[in-house]
């Protein structure tokens, strides 16, 4: 009985503290969708079709449509090019893979250079201490030179 109460309290607490799934805002969507005539995101465009698309987004949001549903409707009308983010398939996949590849290559390069430096420093032979007699003579020569 006690265990059940504890579980119920925990579930209630989790439900209360869990972040609610926020409805998308029109401005978020306008930054993620592209005007088909001017090829800029809707938030950057004031063309007639961009204005019409913004109006449609607001109407769909007021009807309770989700972000996915709104994007699906716009893709059905204007094609996949209306989504600002490149698709993760086909040739467009390169837009995702190339930057990641460059990043990974850069990290490998930096790692390799650091490894090379460290290895070179380890291999360096420490200088042998001077013979005390020679050191005394060198000091004397330097003092005479300064004088």
């Amino acid at each position: 009985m006690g265990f059940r109460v504890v579980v119920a309290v925990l579930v209630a607490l989790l439900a209360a503290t869990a972040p609610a799934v926020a409805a998308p805002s029109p401005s978020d969507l306008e930054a993620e969708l592209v005007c088909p005539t001017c090829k800029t995101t809707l938030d950057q465009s004031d063309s007639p079709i961009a204005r019409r698309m913004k109006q449609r987004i607001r109407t769909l949001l007021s009807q309770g449509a989700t972000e996915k549903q709104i994007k699906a409707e716009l893709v059905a009308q204007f094609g996949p090019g209306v989504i600002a983010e490149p698709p993760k398939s086909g040739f467009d996949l390169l837009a995702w893979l190339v930057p990641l590849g460059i990043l990974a290559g850069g990290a490998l390069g930096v790692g390799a250079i650091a490894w090379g430096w460290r290895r070179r420093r380890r291999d360096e032979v420490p200088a042998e201490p001077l013979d005390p007699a020679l050191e005394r003579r060198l000091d004397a020569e330097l003092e005479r030179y300064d004088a």
Partner: protein
Amino acid sequence: MTADGGQRSIQRVAQVIALVGVAALLGLLIWRVAFKDTSGAADELAAGKLVDAPAFTLDRLDTEGGRLALADLRGKAVVVNFWASWCIPCRDEAPVLQKTYERYRDRGLVVLGVDVNDFKEDARRFMKRYGITYPVAYDGKGSTVGKWGVRGFPETFFVDRSGTLVGERIEGAVDIERNRETFERGIALALGDAP
């Protein structure tokens, strides 16, 4: 291998990787420049070349469902008009195009509207408002724009009975003072009435 030798081989590998990266990017650039179709049919027509009207098959807006291919109109003279419901000059020319269709239909001329970058429902409302009865194809994605070389809306082309572009492309609304002659000549050429 000495430390210097190891360092040199690392440098060599890094140089090769950098070179391969640069070569790949250069290759992509060349491929893009070489294979991208930058000049549409309109530019070739303006240069005086004999150009076949670029083919398309699109959904119809003037009927419930169905597809419409330009090739289906072979044997007819076609006035191809690119438009959109949000385009203001398109409203001015819509009655003119409808009248043209009614006037020349019996002689085998078809006005074919291509609604581009538009909401289907907006396009249908526009067609109803302006009493458009000629065939209209829907190109929401704008797939015809590049092939035809359309630069803005509206734009009008003339296609003769063999499917070849004739006359001049009209940019802006048709049958206003500045292009009435071009419009009438385009129709005559498409019908085969003008040399």
